[in-house]
């Protein structure tokens, strides 16, 4: 074994990695490069006209498209509503489930279940729940709130989608918080108890500071996933973005431009604008949480 040369070792490594490298090139690197090229072209995959280089025209068109700009605002609105709500609920649930609750395995499983359900199925079920004569309205009518079609009114559609999103993904963040909680040594809590600290003080002084890396991780992941939201909005609002376009997100807009208007160039340009937005926002969060955070 000792006389194996470096080259042989590299070769072995290379062969082992080959399946991944191939799939990476075919399904990730190539489409990425191609999409970047298309974002500078007048590109149509119908007919035999060759793509034409148009410089920054696609980016200009994307950034002057009111519907796209609206979709950016809608998405940010969605993110700002979802991320904190989701994380706070997830953290509270994690703390409760981590503690001395009976049947905690059962609760862990139930709260995690929506996460493994297809978002499409979830959206369709909520379409029924939020209908004018759906369950939600029937319950609300008992406390004197007039029934309305929540997904069909401009000012309610996004908050309604937010509620679906939070319900559907809170379990995932709960589980990551749980794994973080298990790394906090019990002695700290015991020491705190000896000093006379209550539950709330323990949460503020021990749990949250020690969970900081986990909170950062979850914030970033949650932010990125909300900025890329597609399925809920598409199923509930369609490619027109629901009532008055209020449910239109950035990714639905890319889909609409690419596959409804067949404007591949502009759609690719939009995709890179979205990439830029996510990149910048993630950098900002990194700054906010301190750069020493290693996740």
């Amino acid at each position: 074994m000792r006389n194996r040369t470096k080259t042989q070792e590299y070769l072995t490594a290379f062969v082992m990695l080959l399946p991944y490298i191939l799939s990476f090139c075919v399904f990730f690197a190539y489409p990425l490069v191609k999409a970047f090229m298309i974002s500078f072209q007048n590109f149509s995959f119908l007919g035999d006209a060759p793509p034409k280089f148009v410089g920054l025209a696609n980016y200009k068109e994307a950034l002057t498209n009111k519907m796209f700009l609206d979709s950016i605002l809608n998405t940010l609105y969605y993110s700002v509503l979802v991320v904190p709500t989701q994380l706070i609920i997830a953290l509270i649930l994690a703390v409760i489930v981590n503690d001395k609750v009976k049947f905690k395995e059962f609760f862990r499983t139930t709260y995690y279940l929506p996460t493994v359900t297809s978002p499409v199925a979830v959206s369709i079920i909520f379409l029924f729940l939020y209908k004018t004569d759906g369950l939600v309205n029937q319950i609300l009518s008992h406390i004197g709130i007039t029934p309305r079609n929540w997904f069909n009114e401009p000012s309610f559609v996004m908050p309604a989608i937010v509620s679906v999103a939070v319900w559907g993904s809170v379990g995932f963040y709960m589980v990551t918080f749980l794994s973080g909680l298990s790394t906090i040594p019990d002695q700290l809590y015991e020491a705190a108890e000896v000093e006379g600290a209550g539950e709330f003080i323990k949460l503020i002084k021990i749990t949250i500071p020690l969970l900081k890396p986990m909170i950062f991780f979850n914030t970033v992941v949650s932010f990125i996933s909300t900025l890329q939201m597609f399925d809920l909005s598409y199923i509930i609002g369609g490619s027109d973005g629901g009532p008055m376009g209020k449910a239109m997100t950035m990714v639905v807009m890319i889909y609409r431009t690419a596959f409804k208007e067949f404007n591949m160039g502009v759609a690719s340009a939009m995709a890179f604008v979205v990439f830029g937005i996510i990149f910048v926002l993630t950098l900002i969060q990194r700054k906010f949480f301190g750069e020493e955070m290693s996740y």
Partner: protein
Amino acid sequence: MKKFLTILLTLIFLLSLVAGIGAAQKDVFATSKITLKLGAWASSPAEKKIVQNQIAAFKKLYPNVDVKITEIVGDYNQKMQLLMASKTEPDIFYMDSMPAWQYIAKNVLEPLDSWMKKYNVKTIGYESSLLQPFIYKGKVYGLPKDYNTLVLFYNKEMFKQAGLTQAPKTWQELKEYAKKLTTDKVVGLTMNLELARIQPFAYQNGGKVFDGSKPVFTDPKALEGLKFALDLFKEGICKTPKDLGAGWVGDAFADKKAAMTIEGGWMIPFLNDRKIPKDQYGIAELPAGPAGKSTMAFTVAYVMSKNSKHKPEAFKLIRFLTGEGGQKYVVEAGLALPSLKSAGVNFAKTYPERKALVDGAKYAQVYFYGLDGTKVVDVFNKAFEDYVIGKKYDLKKNIEERVKQIMK
């Protein structure tokens, strides 16, 4: 290392070459029996049956041609364009009037003129307005398979309870009736809030939204007509199926959530499927406006792919489907109107209670707005939405703004 890579690459290359030869050979040695693919969107079982019957009849005439229906579920245009991009599209397929020019301009459809000459098919036999969306720069690209018009469906029982005896004939009556029929549980009228339903009101008022080659956005007469229809929504005597919590107007009408609806002939088989007895609803022409009657005609044509490997057979199939032999089945089924004039006469005789559909054809506008069709529809639909549920009350200004944004 390098050697190994070279060998690997050569191997992969050789393998793909062999695979290529294998595939090529298959085609060369194919049996004399050929298979045509016919692309259709998913529709009701009754509609599917027509095509199946037509194909069975066609196979009897041409035993060496097998026809396979490729049913496209979901967004038809999107999937069709993806199929085309990968060059796996069917030989002939349905083409809606709306996007027709977009395909034609991209040069992916086969012009049919030379084939029509060769096999003696004349455009004069078809209802003339139906061909308009499929003629581009003087060339014919599709032959209409059938068409449908919008009519007014009304619930006879609800009419009786409200003391009404017949369908509304004028705008005033439409409004009056809708008001009378609206109760806590039922809305007078339901229709989609979109150009394809609202447009007839523009023409009924003597305005237009399309002049034959390009869209007209702010004809004052048209705007006045559109406003009349949109105000029905504002007054709450007309609602969209979505507002009623229904999947589409058909459901809303069948579930008795609305007393009247404006929809096409495809409602009839749907109501049959829902077991709604025929004498429970009536079918009437759309109420006339100040300038007379108008309605929409929706047409679908058969077009041929430029990449088809069996063009002569594909054209023979189109000729059969849109000719006397195939149109017979369209008449028999009574779902849509036959595009062949000679067959249209038989339709009205076979289905007297559906006469309104045929009568409408005489003054109908085809659902078609040229090359920018999708954008035109978008401009109007969004403006309608703003006007009805938004806060922008100036329809004209709103349309102008949207035109500036979308149409360049």
